[in-house]
């Protein structure tokens, strides 16, 4: 096994990018792999259940994952995470604009070659 095949645990940020949008008390967060090869790994590891748990402190309700294999990209729609929405929230980030980067901090296990900065590997 070459070094680049070694499986390491890194924040999703090493493997994918994305952004948040908000409407009402609902946000969507896109997740777009830097390399298409990461797509099946992300499908397997970024389940709606896991994403809902990752946003538990925010009071996340329903989480739906839409898959766009063509791009490839996935789109998470998360309910209630704004805790009142842009108008009622006491949070500094009432729009949830920063929340894509919360999702991008979730750990994923990938071959070393798929991480932009493999030195950011965490203990598995």
């Amino acid at each position, binding site marked *: 096994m070459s070094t680049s095949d070694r499986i390491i645990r890194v924040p999703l940020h090493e493997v994918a990018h994305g952004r948040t949008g908000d*409407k009402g*008390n*609902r946000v*969507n967060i896109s997740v777009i792999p830097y390399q298409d090869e990461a797509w099946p790994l992300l499908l397997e590891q970024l389940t709606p259940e896991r994403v809902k748990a990752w946003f538990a402190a925010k009071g996340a309700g329903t989480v*739906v994952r839409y898959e766009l294999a*063509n791009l490839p*990209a996935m789109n998470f729609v998360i309910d209630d995470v704004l805790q009142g929405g842009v108008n009622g929230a006491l949070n500094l980030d009432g729009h949830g604009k920063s929340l894509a980067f919360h999702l991008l901090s979730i750990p994923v296990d990938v071959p070393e070659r798929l991480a932009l*900065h493999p030195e950011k590997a965490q203990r598995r």
Partner: protein
Amino acid sequence: MTAKTVHIGCGAGFAGDRWDAAVPVVATLASRSGPRYLMYETLAERTLALAQQAKIENPAVGYSPYLERILRPVLKTVKSHGIRVVSNFGAANPLGGALKILEMAGEEGISDLKVAVVEGDDLTTVMTEADIRSHAPVEGIAMPEGRLVAANVYLGAQAIADALALGADIVVVGRCADPALALGPLLHEFGWSFDELDRIAAGTMAGHLLECGAQVTGGYFADPGYKDVPDFGHVGFPIAEIDADGTVVIGKAEDTGGLVSSRTVKEQLLYEMHDPSAYLTPDVTLDISGVRVEEIGPDRVRITGARGKSKPPTLKATISFEGGWLGEGEITYAGPNARRRAELAIEVLKTRVRDLGTNWPLRFDLIGTVATFDGDDGDLRRGRDWPDDGEYRVRMATHGGDKKMAQWIADEVLALYCSGPAGGAGVRHRIAPQVTTASILVDRSRVKASARLVEGTAS
């Protein structure tokens, strides 16, 4: 005959966008030939409610407060080069905005500017408040309490195309679907029928990619070491080229910074999108699930494959209510033992607010630990250990109906200067009136959109 390509630039992606963003966009459009348009999107959900309140105090205003700032720098050039402008900067008062533009034209020595308004988005002119309140809100929000300030339906592209057919150089709209600012010109230029669902879908997708300005050219994207954007301080705004068959190419203004890549396009494609196979607009149900994104040159990305399904039977409207007062205050603690001094400040604030005898909700953030990602209860912060020494900023936020109480609570942060923990610094505190919004769906038969040219007052 060569096939026609329509060029649509975007000069603003939200109300507070850069005042001069349109200048390089217009300079680039002026160097091109064929039908050319400039759109500005300036109307977030709450912006219109604020404009409505401004109009109540002064019936001459209520259009975008930024209208003059963003339009005047390019007004002469767009007119002299035949670049037509479409924008929702009419906000709560498209007619007032049109009159302001005609006044500006007079000052700039432009004598023959044709300005049209699109009207019909203001539901309060055709529905009673009780009727409006009888519609159940969507997107997970309960029908708000409080006084109704505004109710505006998202109009589609047809009335914009109608305004262009009247010969308008500038089309002033209030609330419309943001992508309609691009689809309107495309309907006018290509004569697309609403039955040509995939073309309407492609035009809607083009508008969706343009509507947030720099968000498709490197804005809301740059992430050093991961997604680098050249000359980011001069990020250029986008220009789309659309063909009659619905092929969309996204580029950007010349002699600017920024970046158009498959990554910038994919991020914006999914921005504020829920089900990618069913993005609801007044004009079409857009399906981007089969879209192809290809880099075809430097800062040029082609997007094809948008599909359209029939438009939804109802139109979405945003309804806005007076929403009480937000009270906020922040104070910094730095150096040795800063975290414990900051936490003591939070305890003091809790005590003081309790002594005021209110049960208003309070949120405390300890900025420097984890704040933005945390919930109102601070679970993430408490789940980890944080260094005693360092730099921390306490933030308190509250919300309720009484302006005076909001001020009293916020003032407790200020009082920490003399009566709080050692070394408290840099207090900022304020209260701000809130607008609560919700969305409802209304029957299309209730809405009549129309376009007309506006005559200037004496010239």
